[in-house]
């Protein structure tokens, strides 16, 4: 496999999991911008654990999930009291906080970041396995009682409460799951880049993730398989002479898709249609 292809697949895996991290709270009606914060936590944890403590890959991933979930749970307690635009804006603050904290902690490399993260053989395979695991997890979640509770909260929190759904717990759970998934994405990212900086985890990344979510389709988990390779790969698809216009093409795709298909490229109806084709009657 060429170097370009392996990096492309791993980056796509990172962004697919990260977009799922934004998708889960959205299912519970929360536009959560803390996914990048969780990615930073996972990335730095994995970098530190592998480089300093020499933990193996899978232990680093599990550690990142645990740390990401814990550090995502704490702000989730506060965000569960908010909704809509308030959650979106207030969760953005987490990006400022995590960047400032990292820049001031020497063990995390401060402004220079952490370099020399050990190389993981078979990272492509491991990344694909993680995508598969997370895909199955989210599929099961979406089709579980909990998933229906998420949907009820998204549709109408007051109605959900009258039906016996504890809206606060659902919100905290959604944000905590999101944090854990963000941490997984961060850990893979760190192993792929083998160097990690606080600046990586900024608004530009958040914008990319949200674009991937909205272009792919925010009402199903499958849209990311289209939007992530499409948007991350723009530079690779277009001729090199047009590469400097990549940002413009990116913006045009976003505008056209959101105007023509507000639900995104992949809708629930489409997923149901495809499902009917594959499932034997």
């Amino acid at each position, binding site marked *: 496999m*060429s*170097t*370009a*292809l*392996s*990096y*492309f*697949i791993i*980056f796509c895996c990172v962004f697919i999991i990260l977009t799922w991290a934004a998708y889960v709270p959205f299912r519970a009606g929360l536009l959560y911008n803390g996914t990048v914060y969780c990615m930073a936590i996972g990335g730095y944890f994995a970098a530190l654990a592998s480089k300093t403590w020499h933990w193996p890959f899978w232990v680093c991933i599990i550690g990142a999930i645990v740390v990401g979930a814990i550090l995502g749970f704490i702000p989730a307690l506060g965000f569960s009291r908010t909704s809509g635009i308030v959650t979106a804006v207030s969760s953005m603050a987490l990006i400022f906080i995590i960047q400032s904290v990292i*820049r001031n902690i020497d063990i995390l490399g*401060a*402004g*220079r*970041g952490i*370099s*020399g993260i050990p*190389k993981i053989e078979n990272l492509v395979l491991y990344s694909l396995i993680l995508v598969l695991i997370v895909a199955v997890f989210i599929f099961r979640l979406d089709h579980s009682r909990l998933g229906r509770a998420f949907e009820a909260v998204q549709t109408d929190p007051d109605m959900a409460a009258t039906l016996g759904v504890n809206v606060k717990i659902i919100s905290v759970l959604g944000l905590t799951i999101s944090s854990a998934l963000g941490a997984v994405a961060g850990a893979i990212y760190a192993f*792929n*880049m*083998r*160097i990690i*900086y*606080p*600046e*990586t985890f900024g608004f*530009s990344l958040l914008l990319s993730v949200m674009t991937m979510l909205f272009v792919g389709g925010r009402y199903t988990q499958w849209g990311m398989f289209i939007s992530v*390779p499409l948007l991350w*790969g723009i*530079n*690779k*698809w*277009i*001729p*090199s*002479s047009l*590469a*400097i216009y*990549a*940002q413009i093409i990116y913006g045009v795709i976003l505008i056209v898709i959101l105007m023509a298909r507000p639900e995104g490229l992949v809708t629930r109806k489409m997923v149901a249609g*495809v499902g009917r*084709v*594959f499932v*034997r*009657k």
Partner: protein
Amino acid sequence: MKSRFKRILAATFSMIMVLGSLSGCGSSGGAETTGSGESSTAQGELTISVLSAITGPIAFVGKPAAWAAEYAAGIINEAGGINGKTIKIDMHDTKFDTAEAVSAMSQVVDDALVVVGPMDAPGGEAAGQVAFDASVTNIAAFSFPDIRAQYSPFAIAYMTDSEEGDLLAAKHWVELNPDIKSIVVFANPTDPSQMATAEMLESGLPEVGVTVKKIIEVETGVLDAGPAAVQAINADVDGYYIGIRADEAAKVVSELRTRGVDEGNRICATFAAFSPNYSDVVSEDALNGTYIWNKLDPNYDGEEWNKLVEAYKADNEGASPTVNPVPDYYNALMAIKQCFEELNITGDPAKLETEKAAIAEWFYNSPVIEGIQGEFQWVEGKKVAPVYFFQFEGKQPVAVK
């Protein structure tokens, strides 16, 4: 039967979509890009991959660098190419983003003999790892000695070490102005290189009897530099070292001068401010008397340089090249030509590994090379070349010996 056919059709279509997507990101990237290996040999052409931040926040440096690489390729081709082969630049935009830099490097590294860029330190560190894994010589922004050591012998700095240049310039500045005994340093906390510079000044200037009283943080894109200027003035110091990029440096100097720093000689700026984004923005009165250093001399008098300046002006609406990646990227391409000719590099894919190793050895401790602004050399990957110190007379930087 019908539903089975539909299932097979859907599965086949899905498979084609996936394979189509994956094949599109093969080793050479976009449809028109060319790897430097097999295709280049077949066409009697050598492709040199160049990575630069053509878009994004440092495009004002990245675009001139990309221009310089294309210009150098044109000059080389006019003179008969390298070993009889014309060279072609395969340009990639890193957008001042580490992930984009790694992605761009991954697209070119499999077939490359040598890669020029990324031009920024974070991008260089991140993408340098990919080049190192592929044993490809990478002439990029390796401004930290520890990173060069980590990726040796493949990490070659395209420019001289900025931190050393800053210390040298600051010492020269206080030597010319002996009443300066304490200073503040402006630095961007998100730029590791600038923070390293600030720390180097803190530890190095006491040798000449000067103390750094405070490091004042100025972030990229700051709209109002007033608070930073007030902090500096309140520190009650004799001098102000501006260690930040042109856009922010212009704002800080304007604010300092407006708020009571009357003597221009109390201000010295780093090479990263040496651009029209600095000198065109700051008023003539505010700029007058201030110092600045650079890795190039825009007034250098040499046939090759003068020719480049004319070509640059013709392609850039009369603007002069003032940013150091212009001569540095040009020199990198010319050094590649010299290396390939001395080692008789063929670009033959069968000899790729041997030739890559020979190129790395040549660059790591290079012979003295005649550059576009005088001689330079790489010693253990570090570029050794002269730096230039100026004092503004009005808007004009005048060399200070």
